[in-house]
């Protein structure tokens, strides 16, 4: 069984989730696991320092809305600044991933003896 990847670029993943719709914390955990086919499964409590850090930097903003259960839920919304950072980070990641793939594909193993 392949080892589950540890979360890197957590901020990039969270911004990417919020690019499609506003979400609350647990919803992000579920969606992240679903989209990555359970490859990315982080410790759930550690999501919140990431979210609060993004909020502090102005990349996301938060609002409260009543949940179906009647409880007030805190939702996060990607700001324009967050969208611009996401675009830049995504491009940087794609360049990085492309470079890694290019190096890996060059190291082809010899066949036979």
């Amino acid at each position, binding site marked *: 069984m392949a080892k589950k990847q540890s979360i890197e670029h957590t901020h990039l993943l969270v911004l990417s989730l919020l690019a499609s719709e506003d979400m609350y914390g647990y919803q992000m955990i579920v969606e992240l696991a679903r989209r990555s086919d359970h490859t990315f499964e982080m410790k759930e409590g550690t999501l919140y320092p990431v979210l609060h850090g993004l*909020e*502090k930097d102005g990349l996301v*903003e*938060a*609002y*409260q*809305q*009543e949940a179906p259960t009647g409880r*007030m839920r*805190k*939702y996060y919304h990607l700001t324009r600044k967050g969208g611009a950072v996401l675009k830049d980070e995504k491009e940087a990641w794609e360049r990085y991933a492309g470079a890694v793939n290019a190096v890996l594909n060059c190291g082809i193993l010899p066949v036979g003896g």
Partner: protein
Amino acid sequence: MKRRIWTRKRKALSLTAVTLVLFFLFQYTYGICLMHPVQARWEAEQFYGCGSTERICHVWDGAVGQHVTLSSNEHALLLIGTYSTLSGWSCRDRDAVDCSEAAPLYGGTLRLSDGAVEDVVYAYGQVNDAAIDKIQLSFCFAANETAPTETHIYLTDAEDWHEHNGQRYFLLRSDALMPAYAPLNGRPYQINQGMVWDCTLTALNQYGTVLAEIKT
């Protein structure tokens, strides 16, 4: 219904903005906590309704601890004294003279005080007659009702005046006037600031002939 949640930074900056607005509103309404002496001049212009004036001259009077500013426009002369306090700049004494009618001399006097010990009398004015070469300020002063009356006379020459937009202006200062003291429990106790009356400005030509006189 959505309720936006503000970050700590945003709350702090919003409250600071509200505080600044309240502060300037407070200044505008009550004329205290002024940030700059020019605001005292604007307030005096509004009070007298004389319109916007331009600064002619400005002196620091250490005896009474005030900045004395003379300003004018085509209709008015304004003299104000401003001093700084812990709560900003303040103006206690001010005076204005209407100079919209044609006259050889306009003038006024203003008594400035440090609020405790010393007073000075300033005379100020606009000289429209080219023949006027000197201005004399005279007034009577008594430290209290029973003290002897002193007559104070001060002179200013044209070479000490200020020119602005083709007009001549003067600002003349008396010596410090000391208040009256009486002994109380063996120590001097200030009983009043003294009385000043009969302030007169007299315009003289180079030969000493009186050309105009104003009682202020």
